[in-house]
């Protein structure tokens, strides 16, 4: 038996899971129209690769990844792309984002499905396949799963996250109950790709059926995986905390689990991996819980892009429902409208009414009771973070480890003053990020400005020098002319034209020289590695600027010509 560990804090809100686990997962019917956002994962949004009016097949690529952290987007069913434009999506900002609109033809016709035998695949090939298949973490962070296989450090433990700690959500629970065998196969693929020995499947002990289903599947598969019941406590499903509970290892602040040799995947992600590898199915659907203030709370397997309104209608919302929450009540976001589309991150939608989730009473000032600190799983001092955030003292907030906050909301849950703590933290975090961005822009601008001034100064000097030279030459010429009787002096304009020509060449030369000089900073002995790294970073930036400036300089030259003309 494995020894379990504990983490500080945590809360025990009422779970409300029983309501939506009474009936099996139901396939949602094909909606009349699908809206597929191109940004459904962490990192860069995907780039559309289809045209409006184009017919697409189910599983066909419609958006391809851009850059390192990105993923693919696929058509959830066969049909016609009718628009690629800005549409409202499930985001707290209520701002629109780029989406494809797909009108299904009702055939649900699959495109090419490339199945693979994972044992023959290298980790690298598997990564490529997952990226092509649009597999992202379905535990909430939607981080591209292929990236999580790309790790420099040996990973010796694979943790599978079946905790599902948030109230109301049951999609993972139902998935484990009904498709345990497929999940185990997915886990085996991930294990193979990571090359780990130990696999720990952590499931909260309030899901006995899921635990036994998973145990049975593991036993049947005869893989040496361990299914472990972990104590029910929110946020026990947070990757770092689950790892702490299962292995006793604390992932250091600001580091990734892989840095301590552990990797963590959600059960639904494992299932999606299984479908992608062994059935060739790209990620076009997911299981989502519809619960809360509805007549028939249950789980649906629904296509990505399905309007939430369709799903909710299936479960029949009660009359007093007045808003909808995507995700759980602790970390979810309120939907700006009920017809926004289901995305890969949507594990749950809760119909809410004021009776179910009473609006919080007016916030009172913080009385420093530290109930928040007692429940914070990261052992932060939420009351201090709040104090700094509300007074815009961001430096101090950062000093007090604001960025270690996982926004779990446990603090706000217990706060007797009903302060929207998490919102303060999010506010402070976005401000700090924006400021960092501005700071970088300012540094860049300074360098560009300084470089420009340097260039102008140098050009002025050179011009002056040449003028002096010319005068000297003229004097010499005059003397010579006087000596050799009256020969007309050369015309000024001519000299000038020559001069500008010369000047350009000189400038280019000087620029090259200067670049050579700055590219190798002096004074580099006896530096710490950090300083070296910093210098290197600066060099990279500088080189970039110079190349830009050089371009601009090239553009600069014509004007001189025009003056000369």
């Amino acid at each position, binding site marked *: 038996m494995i020894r379990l560990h504990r983490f500080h804090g945590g809360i025990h809100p009422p779970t409300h899971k029983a309501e939506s686990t009474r009936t099996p997962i139901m396939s949602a019917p094909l909606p009349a129209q699908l809206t597929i956002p191109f940004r459904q994962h962490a990192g860069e949004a995907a780039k559309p690769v289809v045209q409006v009016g184009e017919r697409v097949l189910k599983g066909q690529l419609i958006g391809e990844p851009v850059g390192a952290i990105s993923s693919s987007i696929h058509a959830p069913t066969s049909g016609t792309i009718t628009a690629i434009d800005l549409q409202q999506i499930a985001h707290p900002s209520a701002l629109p984002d780029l989406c494809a609109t797909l009108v299904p033809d009702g055939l649900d016709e699959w495109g090419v499905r490339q199945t693979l035998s994972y044992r023959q695949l290298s980790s690298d090939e598997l990564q490529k396949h997952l990226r092509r298949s649009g597999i992202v973490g379905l535990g909430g962070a939607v981080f591209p799963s292929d990236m999580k296989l790309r790790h420099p450090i040996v990973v010796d433990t694979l943790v599978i996250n079946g905790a599902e700690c948030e109230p109301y959500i049951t999609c993972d629970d139902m998935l484990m109950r009904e498709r345990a065998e497929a999940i185990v196969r997915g886990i085996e693929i991930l294990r193979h790709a990571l090359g780990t020995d130990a696999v720990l499947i952590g499931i909260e002990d309030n899901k006995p059926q899921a635990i036994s289903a998973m145990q049975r599947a593991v036993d049947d598969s005869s893989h040496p995986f361990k299914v472990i019941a972990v104590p029910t406590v929110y946020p026990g499903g947070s990757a770092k905390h689950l790892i702490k509970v299962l292995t006793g290892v604390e992932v250091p602040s600001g580091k990734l689990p892989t840095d301590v040799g552990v990797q963590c995947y959600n059960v639904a992600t494992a299932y999606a991996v299984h479908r992608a590898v062994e059935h060739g199915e790209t990620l076009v659907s997911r299981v989502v819980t519809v619960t809360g203030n509805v007549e028939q709370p249950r789980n649906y397997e629904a296509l990505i892009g399905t309007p939430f309104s369709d799903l909710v209608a299936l479960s029949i919302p009660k009359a007093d429902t007045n808003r909808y929450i995507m995700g759980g009540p602790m970390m979810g976001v309120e939907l700006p409208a009920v017809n926004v589309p289901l995305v890969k991150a949507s594990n749950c939608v809760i119909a809410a009414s004021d009776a179910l989730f009473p609006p919080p009473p007016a916030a009172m*000032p913080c009385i420093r009771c530290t109930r928040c600190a007692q429940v914070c799983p990261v052992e932060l001092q939420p009351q201090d973070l709040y*104090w700094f955030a*509300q*007074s815009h*003292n961001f430096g101090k907030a950062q000093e007090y480890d604001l960025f270690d906050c996982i926004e779990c909301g446990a603090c706000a849950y217990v706060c007797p003053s009903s302060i929207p703590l998490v919102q303060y933290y999010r506010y402070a975090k976005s401000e700090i990020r924006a400021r960092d961005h501005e700071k970088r822009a300012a540094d860049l601008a300074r360098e560009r400005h300084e470089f420009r001034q340097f260039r102008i100064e140098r050009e002025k000097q050179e011009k002056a020098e040449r003028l002096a030279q010319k005068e000297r030459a003229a004097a010499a010429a005059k003397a010579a002319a006087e000596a050799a009787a009256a020969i007309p002096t050369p015309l000024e304009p001519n000299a000038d034209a020559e001069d500008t020509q010369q000047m350009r060449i000189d400038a280019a030369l000087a620029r090259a020289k200067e670049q050579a000089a700055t590219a190798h900073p002096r004074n580099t002995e006896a530096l710490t590695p950090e300083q070296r790294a910093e210098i290197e970073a600066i060099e990279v930036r500088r080189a970039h600027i110079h190349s830009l400036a050089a371009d601009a300089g090239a553009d600069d030259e014509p004007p001189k010509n025009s003056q000369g003309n």
Partner: protein
Amino acid sequence: MTDYLLILIGTVFVNNIVMVKILGLCPFMGVSKKLETSLSMGAATTFVLTIASGSSYLVNHYLLGPDLAYLTTLSFIVVIAATVQFTEMVVKKTSPVLYQVLGIYLPLITTNCAVLGIPLLNVQAKHNFIESLLFGFGGAVGFTLVMVLFAGMRERLEGADVPVIFRGTAIAMVTAGLMSLAFMGFSGLVK
């Protein structure tokens, strides 16, 4: 030995130079906005004050004597001013940031009443050399202590919903008042 300890405790807490003797208030109010600044200012003052009380004892005892008592203030202040100016030059050279942060207050250490007040009180209390030094050092430590505590509170107050007309110096004054109220609790501890 216990006498010396009592002098130290007495000057730091019971007869705290700022809160009870009401000396040295301008830097106390001026340089206490940030914890770090107040610590540095405290250190600079401690340095100057200890030297000032030692050297003024020497001046008073060996140079002036009872006949020239009327020169006390003049000679003390010249010695102190020179000490401060010297410290200023050294700080400016060695730590420009500290110099900037201490700003106008560094030359104003000269006019920190405590720096003259303590030597004068030393003369009044007929302290010997060691006692004078301890008195100066203790006074400065007391000064640093309250300034650091005060700075801590002011930093925290930054986030408070203080009525507009009280923001800044007014609430700082009130806080200083409540601090001196608290320091009255020490009264009688060392007679």
